């Protein structure tokens, strides 16, 4: 019986995890840039929700799109001014650049928001529901449902909109896309901005579950890494599979070994996946 | 003549697609074999399979009696199978000399870097690129890069040398030079397999022709027989033209 509860806990986190990782995966897959700012983007989104709620009383579910848009603007301008300049440089350069940018942003957040851990405490709290013997905290269920909805929205955007098709075209063949009239520079900035939007909105949602501080941006960045590698890089489906997988890994390791093992085991799995099956569980690449 | 390299019923599939389909052939010491076939026939795949880059999914490859099917590419190179690439693959920021020396050092049995560079100098002379010995390889023209590829392979002191489209992109005069060079290499005792999609180019120097089509071996024999083979004509010209050309002389 305990397993049912543990599985439910894992799945309930999975949707949120998918939303945390999908923007990271998009940027990596399309631009071939590992965005080490992603964790700080998430935290910044969470702060938007925190202040919107504590100062203005706006519910995090409503401020999520606003947080997304703020991050979208930041992402768009960062890509346009800085990241695009090294987008064809070797991995080492792009990684180091985003690391440097993250040091800047994270330090700025530390100065602005202090290192204290904060959390959105909803008043009144959402409570829990019981499904047979399983307890489901409603806040987590709602967050995961909204996160999945957002992720699905991104999927439809990529599949059905002109913008989405242009992004996919760049992912497949940058030169050919340019020849077909796609404004590559603009679309690259859009891709990065959409990745930042997803980070900001997901951060906003998770502010009611997790305590946040500039110090734990690295935790969420780490989760995004694990999800992308385990699920399979470069597809929305991969992020969802990886998100649920990470949720399950975390709740199962907590049950078997204790919660302190969740991080080392998920990272050990990441290394194992890279070594043995670098394409991830879904086993294919691309945002087709 | 003894069989130096034996390919026994090998296949190679990529995601369900059969790029090489149950091919058997052998290469004998001292031959110059022309391996031909239309684009996409599987010629380069066969070379990749022999050299261990993409090992066979079925069948066996033997070299001097030893099973090399599953050997690592660098081991196969050390044993004496060298190749050039269709798309030339120099180390762009290394000098021409060091490019060649790499072959001598890692597969050619040169005992030291100095010995390897010494050997590189001789080979650079042999293929006439010694004037650019200290230049970065990236600065070479295509024709010279092809010769650099050749020198790199020769530095490995191979027993068999696969030349993958060494003539592609060269003008007629350069092709003549290249063919002369190939004959000279053959005379030095190295067995050669020339991969070409243009039959004309290899006809003049090959002692035997092997034809691949859709991953299958469709002809293997002396050049004069192979060029008259109906299936070969069909593969190259398409069915209708092949029939037409057969009717015409009749």
């Amino acid at each position, binding site marked *: 019986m305990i397993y049912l509860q543990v599985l439910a806990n894992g799945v309930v986190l999975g949707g949120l995890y998918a939303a945390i990782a999908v923007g990271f995966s998009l940027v990596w897959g399309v631009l071939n840039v590992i965005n080490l700012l992603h964790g700080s983007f998430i935290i910044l989104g969470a702060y938007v929700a925190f202040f919107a709620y504590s100062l203005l009383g706006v519910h995090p579910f409503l401020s999520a799109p606003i947080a997304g848009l703020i991050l979208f603007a930041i992402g768009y301008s960062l890509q346009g001014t800085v990241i695009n300049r090294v987008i064809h440089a070797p991995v080492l*350069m792009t990684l180091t650049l985003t690391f*440097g940018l993250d040091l800047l942003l994270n330090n700025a957040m530390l100065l602005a928001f202090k290192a204290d851990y904060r959390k959105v405490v909803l008043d009144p709290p959402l409570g829990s529901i019981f499904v047979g013997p399983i307890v489901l905290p409603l806040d987590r269920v709602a967050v995961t449902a909204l996160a999945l909805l957002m992720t699905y929205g991104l999927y439809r955007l990529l599949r059905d909109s002109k913008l989405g098709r242009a992004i996919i075209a760049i992912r497949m063949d940058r030169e050919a896309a340019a020849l077909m009239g796609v404004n590559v520079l603009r679309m690259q900035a859009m891709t990065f901005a959409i990745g930042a939007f997803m980070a900001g909105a997901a951060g906003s949602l998770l502010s009611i579950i997790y305590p946040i501080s500039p110090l734990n941006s690295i935790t969420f960045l780490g989760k995004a*890494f694990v999800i992308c590698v385990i699920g399979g890089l470069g597809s929305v489906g991969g992020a969802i599979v990886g998100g649920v997988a990470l949720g399950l890994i975390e709740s199962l390791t907590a049950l078997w070994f204790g919660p302190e093992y969740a991080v080392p085991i998920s990272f050990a799995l990441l*290394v194992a996946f890279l070594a043995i099956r670098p394409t991830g569980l879904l086993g294919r690449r691309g945002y087709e | 003549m003894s069989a130096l390299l034996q390919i026994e019923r090998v296949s190679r599939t990529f995601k369900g697609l059969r790029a090489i389909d149950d091919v058997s052939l052998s290469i004998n010491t001292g031959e110059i074999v022309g391996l031909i076939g239309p684009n996409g026939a599987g010629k380069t795949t066969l070379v990749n399979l022999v050299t261990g880059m993409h090992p066979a999914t079925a069948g066996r490859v033997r070299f001097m009696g030893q099973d090399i099917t599953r050997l690592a590419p*660098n081991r196969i190179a050390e044993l004496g199978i060298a190749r050039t690439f269709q798309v030339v693959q120099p*180390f762009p920021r290394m000098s021409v000399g060091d490019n060649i020396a790499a072959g001598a050092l890692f597969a050619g049995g040169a005992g030291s870097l100095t010995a390897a560079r010494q050997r590189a100098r001789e080979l650079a002379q042999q293929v006439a690129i010694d004037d650019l010995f200290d230049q970065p390889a990236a600065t070479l023209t295509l024709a010279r890069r092809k010769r650099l590829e050749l020198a790199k392979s020769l530095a490995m002191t191979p027993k068999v040398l696969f030349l993958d489209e060494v003539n592609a992109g060269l003008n007629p005069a350069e092709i003549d030079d290249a063919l002369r060079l190939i004959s000279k290499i053959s005379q030095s005792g190295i067995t050669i397999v020339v991969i070409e999609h243009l039959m004309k180019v290899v006809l003049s120097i090959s002692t035997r022709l092997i034809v691949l089509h859709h991953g299958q071996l469709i002809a293997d024999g002396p050049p004069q027989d192979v060029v008259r083979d109906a299936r070969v004509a069909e593969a190259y010209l398409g069915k209708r033209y092949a029939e037409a050309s057969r009717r015409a002389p009749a």
Partner: protein
Amino acid sequence: MRMVVILVILAACLAALVFGGNYALRLATIFAMYATLALSWNIIGGLAGYPSFATAAFFGLGTYASAILQSSGMPMVFAWLLGGIIAAGFAALIGLAILHLKGHYFAIASLALVEVVRELVNINDRLTGGGMGLNLPITHGSVTQQAVYFLGAMATLALITLLSAAAVQRGKLGFALRCIQQNEDAAVMLGVNARLYKAAAFTLSAVFPGIAGGIYASWVHYIDPSDVFDILLSVKPLVMVLVGGLGTLFGPVVGAAVFLGLEEAVWRSFLTVHAAVLGALIVALILFLPNGLMSIARRLPKAGQA
């Protein structure tokens, strides 16, 4: 030009030893440590072209291995060396598993190593003290005597690392790594045993940071996971090498000196924003000087000729 830079650095070190007092001794020790880390990273990252972020894992492993060995009674210097060997063995094993990965995938796998090892150290608190950290046996002698002793140890290590790096650069290993860096497939086809050479490079990039970790632990008397597995320990060496010039012999040493100078200046004047300033420096470096400071030095005489 190159010799001048080296002589200036050496002279500065000597001056520090003679006149500088404890602050300068500390700086010189950190410089030797940074140079060791940068020279080591350059073997895998610069020569072989594999963007490793594992330096912090090797360093941290070295600190904990030698600290635990010392507390179980092993003499200090032996513990340092054994710590290096443990880090190297770890690198060799992991290297065989992850060195077939390219680009981002390798970078991430190496980054994840740091997290895994750090968390394992955190969890095994009976052995490591967990998040509380670990105290090391107190060394004898006055403050200055100790400072001189550890500077000597770290400088000796840096020198050995430099000599090893020089031997690698001139030898068959360095030649193989350059081939791998420029075109790995072609290198393998030429008979280069890429698996072996990459594992050797990765192992070499671990052994010296492992020993440096041991010396560092003895020097500061106290270690904890967030300090010795700090991801900055992986990134700083890489930035130093980028400053000095990828794949060059003395570039990492010059880079370490420049980086340390900037870091000290920043630390002293902008304590609360030092991470941001470091970040800005990194961004500026990547955007404006991707080939390192040495590229300016190389460009200047050419401009003079023209």
